[in-house]
């Protein structure tokens, strides 16, 4: 048996070079040995994989239009087998992505792992972070519930604050002048086609550059010491990655089961009481907006996030010393934790203000969402108009004076044409019944003695037959 598998493996290797590929992938040297500290990248790949798979299957039922988006999300959550789990994993998975990206970034900064010719690797990482944020912004709109609508309204208007190009950007994002079905379509397309394609390309690039630059290893060992004690990636590091992956997966499943992914009532642009809030990870930016008013608004919405991003993106270009130990890099470490503290405080203030000032409104909004989720799913009714039309009976006088030539339901017969697609106006028909020749229908004999009121009824009924 083993012999056979070995032979099959050799056969496959001759044709695919799989041994070399696996060696390349699995036998990478981990300087300083396998550690739990190195699991974050793998955990990100796992959660991204989950987002990818659950996202794919969500599109099996989701319809990106204002008419149907909300109902199809509701259908997935309430009526489809395991739908609550697939959507729940996708919903909470997006937060997990943000948390893991944050931790990964934090670790790379603390460990000084961006140093020593790793600028491009770092930049691709920053790009990946922005793609993850773009995923969350575009995905936020798709359920088309209250918070999706109002949250995106705010996002789009922030984008319109860009000097000179703002209106243009806003219009392109919306696909027109209003937040509607066209907006939903393009957010959907970006979310499920462009961003996945970009992120996969960038992940591949990130991994390639990482393998090329080699793992940085522990910051407290000299290179020689780290190289003296290495593990291969497989199986020791993979095992640690798998354990952490399992923990993350279990957390996601438990959270999705305990707190089913929320869905509020369908977006109602006329609701003047609704208070929109972004996802928790944007709250600090949201809080910043409050401090800059009028012409200074742009400082909160553009300048500050822009500066933070630029400083972060250029980190390996201005922190150039080879020193990696965090104790010996006080500027970067203080900057990092200072920034985190500010973000934390802003976030706390945003939450605190909402808990006090808008307590009642949020309680109401929350209750409305819970109530909506508790209601059973009601399918949309379509095609009922046709039936109503067919049921309307013709006026009594039609049966005695017209039906012999035009059919009982106006369907027509050998003598008279069908009346189900008449394009004349009502006044025209009223005239025609009494004096067909006068309106160019000389083939039909005049129907004398039908009072005008009756002729009007007949005309209305005939016009009701059109679809």
């Amino acid at each position, binding site marked *: 048996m083993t012999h056979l598998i070995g032979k099959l493996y050799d056969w496959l290797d001759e044709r695919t070079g799989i041994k070399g590929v696996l060696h390349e992938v699995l036998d990478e040297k981990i300087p300083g040995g396998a550690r739990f500290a190195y699991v974050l990248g793998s955990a990100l790949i796992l959660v991204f994989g989950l987002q990818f798979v659950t996202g794919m299957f969500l599109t099996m039922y989701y319809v990106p239009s204002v008419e149907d988006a909300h109902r199809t999300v509701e259908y997935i959550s309430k009526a489809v*087998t395991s*739908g609550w789990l697939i959507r729940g994993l996708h919903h909470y998975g997006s937060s997990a992505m943000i948390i893991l990206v944050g931790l990964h970034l934090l670790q790379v900064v603390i460990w000084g792992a961006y140093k020593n010719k790793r600028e491009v690797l770092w930049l691709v990482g920053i790009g990946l972070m922005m793609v993850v944020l773009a995923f969350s912004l575009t995905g936020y709109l798709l359920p088309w519930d209250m918070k999706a609508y109002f949250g995106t309204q705010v996002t789009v208007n922030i984008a319109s604050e860009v000097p000179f190009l703002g209106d243009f950007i806003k219009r392109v994002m919306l696909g027109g002048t209003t937040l509607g079905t066209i907006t939903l379509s393009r957010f959907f397309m970006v979310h499920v086609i462009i961003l996945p394609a970009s992120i996969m390309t960038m992940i591949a690039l990130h991994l390639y550059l990482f393998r090329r630059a080699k793992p940085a290893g522990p910051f407290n060992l000299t290179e020689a010491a780290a190289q003296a*004690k290495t593990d291969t990636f497989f199986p020791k590091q*993979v095992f640690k990655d*798998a*354990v952490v992956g399992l923990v993350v997966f279990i957390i996601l499943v438990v959270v999705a089961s305990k707190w089913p992914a929320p869905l509020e009532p369908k977006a109602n642009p006329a609701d003047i009481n609704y208070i929109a809030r972004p996802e928790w990870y944007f709250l600090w930016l949201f809080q910043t907006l409050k401090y800059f008013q009028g012409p200074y608004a742009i400082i909160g919405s553009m300048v500050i996030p822009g500066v933070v991003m630029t400083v972060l993106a250029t980190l390996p270009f201005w922190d150039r010393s080879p020193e990696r130990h965090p104790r010996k890099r006080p500027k970067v470490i203080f900057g990092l934790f200072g920034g985190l503290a500010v973000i934390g405080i802003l976030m706390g203030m945003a939450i605190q203000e909402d808990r006090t000032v808008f307590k009642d409104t949020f309680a109401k909004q929350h209750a409305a969402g819970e109530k909506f989720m508790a209601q059973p799913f009601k399918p*949309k009714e379509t095609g009922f108009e046709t039936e109503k039309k067919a049921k309307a009976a013709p006026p009594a006088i039609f049966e005695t004076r017209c039906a012999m030539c035009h059919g009982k339901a106006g369907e027509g017969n050998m003598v008279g044409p069908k009346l189900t697609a008449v394009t004349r106006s009502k006044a025209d028909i009223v005239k025609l019944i009494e004096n067909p020749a006068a309106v160019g229908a000389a083939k039909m004999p005049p129907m004398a003695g039908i009072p005008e009121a009756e002729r009007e009824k007949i005309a209305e009924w005939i016009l009701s037959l059109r679809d």
Partner: protein
Amino acid sequence: MSDPETQMVPNPERRNLLIFAIALIGAGISGVMGYAIFGYAVGQALKADGTSGDGNWIGIGKLDDFSEGVPTQKNITVTTHDGWVNHRSEEAVWVVRNTDKVTVFTATCPHLGCKVNWQEQAAQSCFYCPCHASSFNVNGTLIKGAAARGLDTLDWRRQADGMIQVNFKRFKAIVAEKVELL
């Protein structure tokens, strides 16, 4: 932070244990996801959708609307429970009067689901399916062709006011027995 057991070549027993654990975790996560997705994509399709069933009685007219021994086409509006929509659409049935009774056939060919039409012919008038040339006589019995059974009849009943109602259903294609689709 450093792991005292770390060494260049882990002993093979420990190595195998790690590989086993990795495989187990991988299988666990894939298993949960596979199970959920199977229910989501496949199980959902196997659920009875409530479209068929006995609640679905639809009026088709009175006895005098139908002629003796000659099929009359009747379009009825049926409600289909189609995922997140309840859709109302037309379906065709054939009605043949037989003194004070009627026989109602679905117009769907029991072979592969094309629609059968009534053809008046000097020799033998028949229901004819243009797809694979199945023909059925006025009683719905298969004369010849690719179908494995005759036309499917629908249950009907007469209301107090004389209105005849049919219970619209759909049936499995191809097979020789008439099997309701639920």
